[in-house]
């Protein structure tokens, strides 16, 4: 069961639009019901039906063939009467009051009564039925008054000018509400989101709380508290790592100084080697911990410059191992990432190549324009013992001679994962190992 999250703003707009229209509609209908019908509304409706019912024979004499609607009216209002007068003759229904027959004006009558002159399809209300001369067709009627409810239904059935305009106004209100309200509600949310986005990796930056609308303030406060916790955790982690570094390295250093006093040169060299290997492991473990625990800040960088700098940094190591270090790469290759992390990764790859692939006498760092950086050695290769991912796992080693820490590639894999880059280990044509990091194109970069 997954609840679909609808836009709050859209729901609010719908609700508001609906409420406003319902309110206006009820107001208008209430207004109509309040004034009710003094006979005019009902008699206009009936007169319209009567007009439709009038038939004339060849001599022009009128007769009435009631439409179903007129028949309904006749049943609804038992008091209903009407008289149709034409120059050719008259037709009447119901009890036509004597005054009408006497030709008195409609204002004289206490009972509600209307007179309509038929002009083609239109009905014209006449103030005085018998006033004027030679009427075309005159419909006089009375004895029908709508109740309050019937007035409303009559209007709904046959909307006149006023109700049509009201409908239009309601439509405009609904549309405006639906269009404007979401913007009004969403704008502060968008602004808050933009502010949150700007915070990014800036340490100590917080969402401004007082600028937020009251509804967003709890969210902003909670967001800031979450940032506080993250910052505190990061600081704690950093403190822990630097304490760990200090507590591990200081005794190692002390041990190294004591080794200087060892008289037997052979034993001393062996112990120093062991100690260096242990120190290397400590350094790499700390690097790995730092990479996994701390956020990496991404920025556009030139892979060529970073790789060349990393190569330059490892030159002394390479020279002391008697290895020619070479760099190949032209122009600029822009990738998104952390210069520090990529530098650490390349240093690890280079040291691996120098240490384990040194037999070839040279190591090449190559940057391809596709965002790929490779470290190529011409040594013995990693052999078949490790296929696929296994060698990337922490503490996995290509050779079981106890050299190396088995952490270098794990660190590189971690850095690759942070950058959404792929790490590949291949055999160098002619023997050796080629390790490549391929970064995603800039646009798709994380």
């Amino acid at each position, binding site marked *: 069961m997954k609840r679909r999250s609808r836009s709050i703003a859209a729901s609010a707009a719908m609700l508001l639009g609906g409420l406003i229209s319902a309110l206006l509609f009820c107001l208008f209908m209430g207004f109509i019901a309040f004034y009710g019908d003094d006979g005019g509304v009902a008699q206009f409706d009936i007169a319209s039906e009567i007009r439709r019912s009038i038939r004339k024979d060849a001599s022009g004499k009128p007769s009435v063939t009631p439409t179903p609607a007129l028949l309904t009216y006749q049943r609804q209002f038992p008091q209903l009467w009407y008289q149709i007068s034409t120059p050719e003759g008259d037709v009447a229904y119901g009890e036509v009051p004597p005054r009408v027959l006497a030709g008195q004006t409609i204002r004289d009558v206490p009972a509600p009564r209307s007179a309509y002159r038929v002009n083609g399809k239109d009905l014209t209300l006449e103030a005085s039925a018998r006033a004027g001369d030679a009427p075309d067709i005159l419909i006089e009627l009375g004895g029908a008054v709508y109740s309050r409810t019937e007035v409303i239904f009559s209007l709904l059935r046959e909307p006149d000018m006023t109700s049509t305009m009201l409908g239009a106004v309601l439509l405009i209100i609904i549309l405006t509400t639906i269009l404007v309200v979401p913007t009004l509600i969403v704008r502060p949310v968008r602004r808050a989101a933009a502010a949150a986005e700007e915070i990014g990796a800036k340490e100590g930056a917080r969402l401004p709380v007082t600028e937020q609308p009251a509804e967003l303030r709890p969210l902003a406060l909670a967001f800031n508290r979450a940032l506080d916790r993250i910052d505190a955790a990061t600081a704690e982690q950093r403190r822990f790592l630097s304490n760990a570094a200090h507590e591990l390295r*200081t005794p190692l250093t002390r041990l190294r100084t*004591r080794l200087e006093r060892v008289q037997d040169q052979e034993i001393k060299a062996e112990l120093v080697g062991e100690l260096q290997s242990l120190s290397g492991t400590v350094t790499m473990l700390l690097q790995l911990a730092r990479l996994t625990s701390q956020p990496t800040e991404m920025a556009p960088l030139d892979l060529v410059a970073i790789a060349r700098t990393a*190569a330059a940094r490892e030159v002394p190591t390479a020279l002391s191992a008697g290895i020619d270090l070479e760099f190949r790469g032209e122009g600029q290759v822009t990738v998104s990432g952390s210069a520090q992390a990529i530098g650490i990764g390349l240093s690890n790859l280079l040291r691996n190549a120098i240490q384990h692939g040194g037999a070839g006498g040279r190591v090449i760092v190559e940057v391809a324009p596709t965002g790929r950086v490779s470290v190529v050695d011409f040594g013995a290769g990693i052999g078949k013992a490790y296929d696929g991912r296994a060698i990337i796992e922490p503490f996995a080693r290509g050779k079981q001679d106890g050299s190396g820490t088995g952490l270098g590639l794990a660190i590189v894999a971690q850095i690759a994962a942070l950058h959404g880059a792929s790490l590949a280990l291949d055999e160098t044509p002619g023997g050796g190992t080629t390790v490549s990091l391929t970064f995603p194109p800039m646009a798709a970069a994380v």
Partner: protein
Amino acid sequence: MRLLVIEDDADLGPWLRETLEQALGGADLVATLDEARAALQVRPFDLVVMDRRMPDGDAIDLVSMLRRLTPRPSILVLTALDDPNDIARALDAGADDYLAKPFEPVELIARARAVLRRNQLDQKGITSVANLRFDMPARAAYIDDQPLVLPRRELALLEALMRRAGHVVLRESLENAVYGFDDEIQSNAIDAHLSRLRKRLREHGCLAEIKPLRGIGYLMTDGA
């Protein structure tokens, strides 16, 4: 040459003093920041080697004071904290170099020599590698104190390499050093100048060596 070692560790301190003394000359050992301040008031030092975590504070706080001294001592920071941010903070404060613990004695001596050499370069404008000496203000090179006459571009190359002796100088830095804005750079011109310069140095019995690194740059080493 006088050195000050600021180190509170009972094993490491004496060992540092001994090692540095054997390689570079007289060294004093202090175990607190207060003692260090007192020592610095008594006499000038050429090099201060400091550990960061001292009983009475972070030794980095001393760096700004050290930098105001004349002559300014070179500062080498030993750190167990190899967090890149910590290293950046040490260098920003004004330390000349840092060395991550644990370190090999040879590495310590090499780094100490390098910062001393750079400081000497900053203050006197003179730097030397093996029997090659370069006088920056005079723009003159000497091998075994014999002046070496070099064409303009080779002199500029040698100067750039000597400034960063022991470090790789990237190719583009060399191009910037040798050519002005208006000069037309031919892609292999630098290599031609350098091979002539290397030949000339060899012929004059220079022990220092310029190591070419393909695609990276060049490195001035003492040839050892």
